[in-house]
């Protein structure tokens, strides 16, 4: 809390300086939920920002901006200080982004992982991370000996539940006896707690660990315990060289560069983007050879098929935990259902925290 206050103070001073020296030059602003050094979510967004900078466009960013009134103030300041395009890179900035957009019709806004586009100058974008989870599930289902997959989850939002389901479905396909054990840590980012959660899952028989949290502590715990793990958001391979099988990588750079150039050239228009493996917004880090050459080949093939659309992560029949049908045989889940997903599929243990 206090750290943020300190940051706001500095950023406020910077913003005032910027606004005084504001010129007609085209500028792009970024608002981040975490520090750029988190080595996960925000780190990857900042890599995207650097790509925009490399394309010759000026950028500014504000780190660790809390949801709510603070977010609105920071976004408003960016808009006031002459930024022409503003990326707000976390789900919780949704309302603040739309509110500010109303008052600045000439500024373009891009909101990550949200669904509200109340004004014509607001676009939304997200990545189909669940496609990556399908590949993880396939690998995990093949490699597990205890038939238990440990999953460290952050908050019970559709994004996270979608990942758990996609992984479980893919694992079941290759290994019907699979069980997914989940521990909720109610944090995006607490290395100590994430490490303890990983250890608890390992003690309860999980021999593969994956995470939907941002620190590298779980993969390090897995490395120490001598079991497999998967990295999240960025390539975590160097933190657990033996343990990591692959990481799901978010690659925002091409999208950011494309949108920034479009806005600069006056070709920007409102969009709702949900890109995946096909467009490269979701990528997989190199597969660990230790999983076996055959499995590497299968994973690469699956990656290709998911990208081309030949295989869909949510293909019926899909049942919920009680056995009710969610997606009929031969059908695939539509994007609306995916975006609002709030039930576990069959095979996941426990209840979703309400």
């Amino acid at each position, binding site marked *: 809390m206090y750290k943020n206050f300190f940051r706001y103070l500095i950023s406020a001073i910077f913003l005032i300086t910027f606004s005084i020296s504001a010129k007609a030059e085209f500028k792009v602003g970024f608002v981040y939920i975490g520090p750029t050094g988190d080595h996960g979510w925000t780190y990857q967004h900042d890599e995207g920002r650097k790509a925009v900078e490399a394309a010759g466009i000026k950028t500014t960013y504000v780190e660790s901006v809390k949801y709510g009134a603070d977010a609105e103030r920071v976004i408003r300041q960016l808009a006031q200080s002459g930024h022409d395009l503003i990326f707000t890179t976390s789900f919780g900035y949704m309302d603040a982004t739309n509110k500010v957009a109303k008052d600045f019709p000439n500024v373009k806004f891009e909101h990550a992982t949200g669904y509200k586009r109340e004004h014509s100058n607001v676009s939304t974008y997200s990545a189909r991370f669940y496609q990556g989870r399908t590949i993880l599930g396939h690998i995990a289902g093949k490699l597990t000996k205890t038939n238990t997959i440990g999953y460290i989850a952050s908050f019970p939002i559709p994004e996270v539940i979608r990942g758990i389901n996609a992984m479980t479905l893919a694992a079941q396909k290759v290994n019907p006896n699979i069980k997914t054990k989940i521990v909720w840590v*109610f944090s995006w980012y607490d290395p100590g707690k994430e490490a303890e959660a990983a250890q608890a899952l390992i003690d309860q028989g999980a021999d593969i660990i994956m995470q939907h949290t941002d620190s590298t502590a779980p993969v390090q715990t897995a490395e120490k315990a001598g079991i497999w793990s998967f990295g999240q958001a960025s390539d975590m391979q160097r933190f657990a060289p033996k343990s990591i099988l692959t990481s799901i990588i978010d690659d925002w750079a091409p999208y950011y560069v494309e949108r920034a150039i479009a806005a600069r050239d006056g070709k920007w228009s409102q969009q709702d983007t949900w890109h995946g493996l096909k467009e490269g917004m979701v990528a997989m880090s190199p597969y660990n050879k230790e999983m076996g050459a055959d499995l590497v080949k299968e994973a690469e093939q699956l990656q290709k098929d998911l990208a081309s659309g030949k295989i869909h992560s949510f293909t019926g029949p899909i049942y919920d935990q009680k056995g009710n049908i969610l997606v009929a045989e031969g059908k695939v889940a539509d994007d609306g259902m995916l975006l609002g997903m709030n039930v576990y599929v069959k095979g996941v243990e426990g209840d979703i925290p309400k």
Partner: protein
Amino acid sequence: MSLDISFIGILIGSIMASSVPLILAASGELITERSGVLNLGVEGMMIIGAISGFALMVITDNLFIAIIGSMLSGVIISLIFGFLTQSLLTNHVATGLALTIFGIGLSAMLGKDFVGIPGKDFPILFSSLRESIPFFGPILFGHSIILYFAFVLPFLTNYFLKKTKLGLVVRAVGDSPISASNQGINVILVRYCCILYGGGMCGLAGAYLSLIYTPQWIENMTAGRGWIALALVVFATWSPIKVLIGAIIFGGISILQLHMQAVGFRIPVQFLIALPYLMTIIVLVVISRDSRKIKLNTPTSLGRIFYKEK
């Protein structure tokens, strides 16, 4: 939950490991508070210790220097607090809060270049005994030296406060600085020493996180443990042994609730997450009901500014 005996041993071992930073920081803060100084900067001093230890480990590749350096950095940053509150007579609460803000901000800045560097394995003692003895092996052996130190520290602290002359001086200064001063005790000097000691222990607690528990540097990695340590001292009514009990209960239930989730207990997760806080408070309140003892242990002049008229 699989309940075989060796599993319980491993579980107890990991509970002990998770409570170490709380024991260290709370024991240090306890001495500071017993001298009448309320330092709310525990979180800030811990995070400075964490980054200093990790940075020194990367730069010098020497874990001994890293550990000593982290303690020294805690001492140095607490010296700022000491100077402000003891020499410039600023308000303890405000200065302590400022120290936490400062520590978190400074550590983030210093740590920019150390993000994403994997840590080193910290040597553990008696690792062969850990494997060969069931149940007791994982509890007693295979830990880092810091863990053993942390579990001895509350007893040493207790001995120091109750049985030594210096301990008596610290308590006197905390209870009635004016009387102590009239007895010829240099109150400011004693308080300085206690503040610096507290800083050193908090620095060590931070280094335990960044060098041993989750060997890496990440911004804000103490994640509120400093505040829990502070609360422990109060709920343990300034008794070192109760601090130890509180830290173990807190660490234990934090880890047990994760196991309960993994096993799939049908208890709301939010309740499980609140459980360590609830249980620690309940247990400490129950074991500290004796109001006479509380009065005896509470530093009467805690947080009050003392100055000597010249």
